[in-house]
């Protein structure tokens, strides 16, 4: 009976998390188009519903009812499998993210490593999609993605080592708690190098501009998913946005203090203590997602050799240096 109770709680948590995240994915597209529209002196979507608020619904219906086109010479099983791998890898990482104190689907010891494993798995969806489409553009997109993900995964993992060293744990819950009792209240200041490396690698890992070379529109049509249409295309888009949400939550949890507020802020403004933790988490998450849109609207796309040089010659040495500094500091203090 107890086991049944535990399982049903987990199922309820999964339903809540998946529906909230899918809602956020839908409105992240709306938010993105509005923000980028404003930054480029346009209005963004405004026709469907008041202020265009129903635009994601219209997009969803449209992608459901579009004709599903499969290229004749494609490798059909792999072609069907690729978007599923993408969305599965993105969704399963949600299982270990604590959204506020005590709310986590599965509180495992290896939270960070699990997220890293799942984000590296997402590359398969992209690479296999590029290969199975049997198209030049998709193929080149897949190749680029493979090289990019391998390169930036290294610096992404290494940039988090400093956080793990300071907190002494892989568990995301423990990391947040260790942060709230640290001197600054969050790790973005003592881990400023790691935070910088993490931001750059997270943008590259999710294939977002300015590192969106696997789907560079001006060179590769749409890159790895050029041959996908209808609902399979929507799955790829959803996987990309869930990836963004996961990387942003990781930034919030590891560097920005998660659902906690620094103690000195609470000391100055005691009434802030009444705000529930999930509000802080979501506000910080929105700020990170806004940052994604901001750099998309601001920065031009990197050239491919620049991307590789940045990853291997700047980010990896910087993250190694960060580990060295953190280790020495931890020994001294």
């Amino acid at each position, binding site marked *: 009976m107890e086991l049944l109770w535990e399982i049903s709680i987990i199922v309820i948590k999964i339903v809540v998390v998946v529906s909230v995240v899918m809602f956020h994915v839908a409105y992240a597209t709306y938010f993105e188009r509005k923000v980028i529209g404003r930054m480029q002196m346009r209005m963004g979507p405004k026709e469907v519903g008041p202020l265009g608020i129903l635009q994601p619904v219209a997009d969803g219906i449209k992608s459901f009812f579009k004709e599903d086109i499969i290229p004749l010479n494609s490798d059909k099983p792999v072609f069907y499998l690729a978007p599923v791998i993408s969305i599965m890898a993105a969704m399963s990482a949600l299982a270990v993210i604590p959204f506020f104190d005590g709310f986590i689907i599965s509180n495992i010891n290896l939270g960070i*490593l699990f997220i*890293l494993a799942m984000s*590296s798995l997402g590359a*398969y969806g992209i*690479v296999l999609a590029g290969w199975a489409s049997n198209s030049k553009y998709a193929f080149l997109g897949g190749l680029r993605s493979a090289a990019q993900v391998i390169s930036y995964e290294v610096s992404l993992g290494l940039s988090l080592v400093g956080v793990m060293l300071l907190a002494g744990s892989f568990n995301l819950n423990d990391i947040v708690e260790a942060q709230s009792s640290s001197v600054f209240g969050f790790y973005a200041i003592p881990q400023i190098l790691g935070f910088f490396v993490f931001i750059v690698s997270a943008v590259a890992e999710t294939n977002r501009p300015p590192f969106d070379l696997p789907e560079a529109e001006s060179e590769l049509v749409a890159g790895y998913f050029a041959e996908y249409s209808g609902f399979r295309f929507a799955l790829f888009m959803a996987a990309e946005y869930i990836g963004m949400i996961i990387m942003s939550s990781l930034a919030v949890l590891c560097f920005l203090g998660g659902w906690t507020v620094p103690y000195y802020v609470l000391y100055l403004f005691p009434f802030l203590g009444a705000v529930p933790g999930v509000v802080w988490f979501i506000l910080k998450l929105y700020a990170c997602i806004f940052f994604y849109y901001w750099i998309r609207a601001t920065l031009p796309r990197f050239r491919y050799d620049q991307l590789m040089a940045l990853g291997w010659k700047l980010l990896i040495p910087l993250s190694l240096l960060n580990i060295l500094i953190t280790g020495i500091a931890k020994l001294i203090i």
Partner: protein
Amino acid sequence: MLNQIIFGYFAVTMISLALIVITRKNIMHSIVYMLILFFHIAGLYLFLNAEFLAAIQIIVYAGAIMVLFLFVIMLLNLREELRKSRFAITWPIGAIFVVLSAVMIIISVFGNRFANVGNVKISDIEKVGHTVAVGKLLFVEYLFPFEVASLILLVAIVGAIVLAKKEIK
């Protein structure tokens, strides 16, 4: 009983997946099956309380090494590969080596020549967590072999760069 059933599932699935991997004609399909195989290996580690090893299995093998394989395979001309015959002319030589190594493995398994059992018990690992236990062993007890292994890897990296560079400026 449940343990045996779970282990049986993993053992049977892993062996059949391994067979599928080496019998596919299309290398891309082999890779997909190998991915599933890696997940089963990681699952087996989880049942041994070795969660760190399971995560590393996925990150290193599935996340890095297999993506590298994919990268290389995508540069090959697969359509021509598919038309070629499944066996190279030299297959009897390969078969001899396979049979010999199979004999070796069988002899060593039945000879019961396993390494010494370590002095870390599962109850100790459960107390501190697998990551801490592995870290302590690697960096305290086996520091020298660990450093030697990393040095060997460094040699391989330097060698690869020297081979890849056409002329060193």
